[in-house]
Structures are given as C-alpha cells and as structure tokens.
C-alpha cells in the first residue's frame, strides 16, 4: 500500500483534488477531479510515478463533456480514475505526447463524442469511416441528457441497487 500512499502524497502536493475511494464499490482506489488546465500536469505526474494508461473516454452530460482518464500501476494494485470537465467548446488539452497510447483513445473519443483534444496532431477518424465523421454516435438526445450531478456517486449513499418497481403514479399513468 506504500505506492498508493506515495502517489496520494505526490498528487496532494501537486494541488490536485484527490480522494481515496472504496475499491470494493467502484473499482478504483483513488479518484481525482481535474480542471481543464491541470490535465497535462496530472498526466506527467502519473508518468513520473510509473503508471500506465488504461483508457481515456468521455461522458456526455450537461454542461459539457466529462472526460475520464484511468491509470493503473504494474507493480501494485493502484487504479486511479481522473475526471475533467471539457470547456464550453468541448475542448480539452491532449495528453498523447505524454502517454502515446492516449493517441488512439483520444481519436476514438473524438469520433464518438466530438471532444476536441487541443494539441493533438492527428484527429482523423479512427473507428468510424470518414463519411460518418460528423455522426458523433454517442451524443445523447436532449431528453436523455442529464446533468453531471446525476451521474456522480453520492458520497455515503446506499450502494444497493434499487429494484425496479413502478410507483403508483407511474402505474396509473401507464393505464
């Protein structure tokens, strides 16, 4: 566990908003909340600590995209989940020159959501074909789009899933 402590200290001293999380419930050890400008510094810190990149992805919410980075370590169990909100234009700095593996993940995210990774040299379509470049298949319809608060884990909340039971209002509405 020393690695986790060390990383926690390093991240805290780098003024990142980092918190330990319950691995049993959410599958990662540390949770980091980043601002748009911190992304590159954070990635550099991760590389210096010897983490490998697991994936980069995004979630379409209001007000804008939440970009998710996940890192883990080869030597010890330490999985780090970092979230950063893209700016209003859907832009966020690239980390593909720090973590070269992020290149494809960022291209994919650009394909699916249209997140623009500023500084990325090569944002050609990767998985979608060129004529579908403007499709952005994972963007949510307006009626399904939720606020970022909705998908954030409630601290100390009940981990049990709620069973599917229609409320009386819904039942009457269905009838």
């Amino acid at each position, binding site marked *: 566990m020393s690695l986790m402590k060390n990383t926690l200290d390093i991240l805290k001293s780098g003024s990142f908003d980092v918190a330990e999380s319950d691995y*049993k*419930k*959410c*599958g*990662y050890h540390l949770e980091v909340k980043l601002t748009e400008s911190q992304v590159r510094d954070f990635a550099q810190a991760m*590389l210096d600590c*010897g*983490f*490998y*990149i*697991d*994936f980069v*992805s995004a*979630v*379409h919410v209001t007000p804008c995209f939440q970009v*998710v980075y*996940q890192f*883990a370590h*080869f*030597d*010890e*169990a330490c*999985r780090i*989940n970092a979230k950063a909100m893209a700016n209003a234009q859907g832009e966020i700095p690239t980390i593909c020159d*720090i*973590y*070269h*593996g992020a*290149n*494809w993940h960022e291209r994919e995210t650009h394909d*699916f959501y249209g997140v623009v990774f500023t500084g990325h040299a*090569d944002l*050609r*379509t*990767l*998985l*979608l*074909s*060129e004529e579908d470049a403007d499709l952005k*298949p*994972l963007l949510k319809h307006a009626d399904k789009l*939720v606020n970022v608060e*909705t*998908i*954030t*884990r*409630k601290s100390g*909340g*009940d*981990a*049990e*899933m*709620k*069973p*599917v039971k229609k409320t009386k209002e819904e039942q009457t509405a269905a009838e």
Partner: protein
Amino acid sequence: MSTMTKFETTDKHRFLLNMGPQHPATHGVLRVILEMDGEYAMGIDPVLGYGHRMQEKMAESRTWPGFYPNTGRMDYVGAMPFNHGYVALIERMAGIEVPERAEYIRVITSEMNRIASHLLGIGAYVLDLGAFTPILYAFDDREDILDALEDITGSRLTYCYYRVGGVLKDIDDTFIKRTRAFIENFRKRIPMYNDLVTGNVIFIKRTEGVGIITADMARRYGATGPTLRGSGIAYDIRKSEPYSVYSHFDFDIPTGKNGDSLDRYYVRICELEQSLRIIEQALDKLPDGPVLAKPKRAKLQEGDCSFSVETARGVLTYYLVGDGSEVPYKLKIRVPSYSNLSLLEEMCTGMLIADLVSAMGSLDLVIPEIDR
C-alpha cells in the same frame, strides 16, 4: 477508419504499400498502410474500424441484461473473460454476492477459454512465420476444450454463459471427467509444441530480437497481457487486483526477459501450464451449492464503477456510468489489443516487412475486439 493516410510521400525512393484489409498476416480486417523503402517499412499507419459495430452505443440503448450476448462477440477467441468482466461489473455496482460454486465454475471455464485462445494465438503466430502444421495441432487440442465447453454453455465460440449472480447452468460429472482427461492429455502435448516450434532454429532466428517492447514503452501505450509480460514485468490482474476466486489458487506469472517476439510467444506457452494448474486446483476444491443467486432486475445506481479482468490478451476494463435507470448511461469497453496494437508504429518503424509480420503476429491480435 480513415481513407486518408498521413504519409505525404515526396521521396521518390519510397512508396506506399497497402497491407490489408484482406491480408493473411493481419488476422482479419485490419489494414496497415506502410511507407516502404525497398523492403523496409519506414512509416506505419494502422487503419481500424472495418469491423466496427458500435458496441458502446448498443450498451446505452438497452437495459443492462440485454448486453450479455454482446460481451461474447468482441473477442470471439477468448470470450469468457469478456462475459466475466461485464457480469462482475454489474455485481460490483449492485453489491450482489455470488455463490462460491459459481465463482469456481467461472474460473474453470475462463481458464479453459484462455488455453483455447492461447493455442489459437500460438498456432496463428507460427503460421505467420510460414509453418503451416502447428496450427492444426493446436486446433486438435482446442477442439477438446470447445467440445467440453459446448456441453455446458451451449456455444463453441461466442459464449454467453455468465449471469449476474452466478452462471447459467451447473457443470456435471461428464464435464469434470472430460476436463481432467484433457488436462492429463494436454500436459503430454506441451513438450511436443516445444519440440516442434520453440526449439526450431529457423523459428528462433525469426523471432529473437524482433519487435522489442521495453517496460517504458508498455507504460506509455498501456500494453498488457503476454505482450507486456514478455518484457519481464509480472503484471496480471488475476494477481494484482484479484477478482472472483483467483486468490484461492496457487499459480505463477511467467515472464520473459528481452521483450522480443520470442519472449511473448514463450510466455503464452508457459501460461498454458499455469492455466492447467488453476483448473486442476479449482476442480479439486470445487464446493457444492447453488450456481445462481436469485436473479433480480434492478436499476443501476447513480455514479461510476469500473471492473478489470485479465483476458487472454491483456487487461479488459469495463467502465460504467449509471444515472439511476436500468439502462447504462455510458459503458466504456477498454480492450487489450487496442492498446497493444497502438504501439506497433513505435515498435516496428524501420523494420523489414518480414520482421513486421513476425512482430505484429506476436501481439496476438483479434481485430473484432479492437474494432468493437
């Protein structure tokens, strides 16, 4: 998939070579655009997406049990761990306890699937190097596994056997007998593979020192699985973040030394034996009891959750974001070959085309998994 290539060839000594999407060495519909100088590949640009099915969109457009069958259809060679990751993710999110017998069955079937996948990987790799015979020997052994798994899961390739809370169907004595017979038989066959392939002078000459991956490279690209372990890093999700009941078993993580194609190949050969050990122990310790907790439909809680498993090719991570409904708000599927392939450019630039084929084959790619 992008029809535009990033190469702007002005040097008249260089030319573009289009390898794939129907090329024998790319194992499916992968296309690699090569900028060649004679027989040397000076520029490499993989083009993905020919088998793209938008699995992540499918996950977002149905309730979570509806995504079960899709999980078996990404990595069709080693589908069990993909099943495993998904059901374990939902279980983690919902806090569902799984009966111990079900966990043991999951481990047994996952490991058998891993052996089948490695056998195909090894056979196809040697086929890439021009030896036709070993793949058919590998198919011979793989057939035993597929037959045994077919009996209990109902399918031979794209499994959909695990359920949230357990497995679909209990295993019977026939399966256990068959598996034990397979283990005994297969132990005798592994030395044969070593005699036929591993010790061959031509094979060693073709693979030694070809396509070296350093630990630093693996870190920057997120390479995992045998691709990483060939470079001497003993990283395996089954040990580092033990899921299911893997912590109950005694097994080793084989590693290589130089990180070349030969090491990656040999790691796979050694993992066959480790998987056999796990299956043996699991069969010995197999507890009695139910195999499926009472299934329940439930809404996914708000918040995110991730689950990583070790597939035959490396780390698979499912990352799910729930918004309180039955339908996942977002499901990211991080597949191992995707990251493994992304280091091809750095690994192979400046190589002979024959070495490129050797290095690419040693990554053991499954293209539908990359394209999802």
